[in-house]
């Protein structure tokens, strides 16, 4: 299934894009998707933190299934204010 992946801030800089479409297998989870993204974008490997993930605009655990999910966003630790 196709997942629309969003990147923000430093992650967008590391991947060189703010969004992309990625094909994942039927049993994929957020963690599986991230592994796939690491192989596409070596600059994502070895981050000093695990990005937060939001599936279809809802904050989600990394072991959550992507079944029925259309969009996954990965966000670095926030630093607003």
């Amino acid at each position: 299934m196709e997942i629309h992946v969003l990147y923000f801030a430093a992650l967008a800089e590391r991947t060189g894009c703010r969004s992309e479409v990625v094909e994942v297998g039927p049993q994929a989870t957020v963690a599986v998707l991230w592994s796939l993204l690491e192989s596409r974008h070596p600059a994502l490997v070895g981050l000093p933190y695990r990005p937060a993930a939001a599936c279809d605009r809802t904050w989600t655990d990394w072991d959550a299934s992507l079944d029925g999910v259309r969009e996954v966003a990965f966000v670095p630790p926030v630093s607003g204010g």
Partner: protein
Amino acid sequence: MVALQSDPIRLERVLDGLAADGDGAVAVFLGTVRDRNAGRPVVGLTYHAWPEMALAELGKIEAQACASHGASTVRIVHRTGDLDVGEISVAIAVASAHRAQAFDACRFAIETLKRTVPIWKKERYADGSAAWIEGS
């Protein structure tokens, strides 16, 4: 009312019409761009937001400040884009019946914003380099 804006924040606009007749206190927090961080000279900040989720999270803070901290009205405005030293990055204004609730709700709002709202700052340094700040 919560908002993101790329134009400079005008405090008088944030405060305009905020306090109702039943309010006896208004507390304001302004975040401003500092000229250094961890001893390193900073010439400006660039703020990047995930607008839809940032507004949703700011809306939760507004609602909770009223429901659990005694605020009667809350306004939070956060800048995006490039800011120079001294500019206002975030304005939080809280009206309430009494000062204790206004201070408490205002503090709650900024502390929660810094933990939960998907906005990021990039520091621009005097030597021309820049770095994203991750975590606050």
